[in-house]
């Protein structure tokens, strides 16, 4: 049976007709055309589909669209300020924290969730927080460097020269 779901996506009110089994990620990608959120594993493990729901990171491949009724969803498309990248995005670019980029939207959404509660995370805390985000190209070294640099930029601390260039 089809139902109407109403929610806020990237600050704008959205209504759509969905099936009970429609996943939030399908609503985002297929109905709303927000294809920055990716589907990697489809088994809730890889984290390429991480978005924020009411400010918290969740796996949009493991949430029904109807479970997001009345909630506020933020995707990677709403992270930059127009043409100006968010400091966390800028840090991923500066630190060469991606190769293919498939995992990057989820990495950035998880990184922002971490920094919200922990503005100055250690390497270990970053690695632990990325338990549910898989990268299959670079390894995690530069991703960790990027999140440290992004967190520093977000709290206004001087950004250390990045490690990637020194290696």
């Amino acid at each position, binding site marked *: 049976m089809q139902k109407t779901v109403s929610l806020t996506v990237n600050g704008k009110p959205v209504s759509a007709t969905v099936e009970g*089994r429609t996943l939030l990620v399908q609503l985002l990608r297929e109905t709303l055309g927000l294809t920055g959120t990716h589907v990697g594993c489809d088994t809730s493990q890889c984290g390429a589909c991480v978005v924020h729901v009411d400010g918290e990171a*969740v*796996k949009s491949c493991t949430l029904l669209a109807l479970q997001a009724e009345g909630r506020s969803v933020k995707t990677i498309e709403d992270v930059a300020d127009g043409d100006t990248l968010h400091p966390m995005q800028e840090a991923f670019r500066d630190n060469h924290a991606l190769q293919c980029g498939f995992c990057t939207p989820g990495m950035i959404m*998880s990184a922002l*969730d971490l920094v919200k509660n922990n503005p100055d995370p250690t390497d270990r805390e970053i690695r632990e927080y990325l338990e549910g985000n898989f990268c299959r190209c670079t390894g995690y070294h530069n991703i960790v460097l990027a999140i440290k640099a992004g967190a520093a930029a977000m709290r206004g601390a001087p950004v250390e020269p990045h490690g990637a260039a020194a290696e």
Partner: protein
Amino acid sequence: MYEFDYQKAASLDDAAKFLAAHDDAKLVAGGMTLIPTLKQRLAKPSDLVDLASIGSLKGIAEEAGGVTIGAMTRHVEVQRSDIVRRVIPALAALAGMIGDPAVRNRGTIGGSIANNDPAADYPAAVVGLGATVVTTKREISGDSFFTGMFETALGQDEIVTTVKFPKPQAAAYQKFKNPASRYAIVGVFVARTGQGVRVAVTGAGPCVFRVPEMEAALARSFSADAIKDIAIPDDGLNSDIHASAEYRAHLVGVMARRAVAACA
């Protein structure tokens, strides 16, 4: 996923009535196990009844010297709760080891125990701490709540409302994680209580189980050494691509000794 109808329950009573009238309806709490199960077409419910709007199912309170946790309380809330961290730190630590941060932002204690996945973490805490599961109909002791693989004592229209954990003298949970899913390949919860020692094992068998031999040995002498010679038979233990039954049996001893050491 097969098709189903999605229902949002306005109250516990609504949810129970719907379940009573629809044999193939299922409750959804956080959905962190149910939705992946549905995606694999391993279940075909007619309806999913979402409990998310029922505020009375959420929250953590210090009661009767222990901790009472509402069924719809999420893992992240238990992990970060000042009450749980002060009264039963091992329980907060266990919640912080479930899945990954995004999973902990959705998954709930009630969903975890009602689903009773053989590799879930919370069943080890419920049995290991001798908790009581409160439902819409009755109170069920942790020892009799989990009845088999994905099976519990819950009736068709019975809903978990809270779980009451007594405060132990000391407790710890140690798990050997599946590196991808973070589910327990083997997890052991050890608690020293006024009524004796409890050792509960998850991940190793089809359902959480206690190890009376270890409990007796630890009651005599609470040290990792006291259980080092106790071998766990591998009969009936889980065996899959991640670990053989023999390996799981071995890990029960290792995780139990680590948990005892962590209690000190």
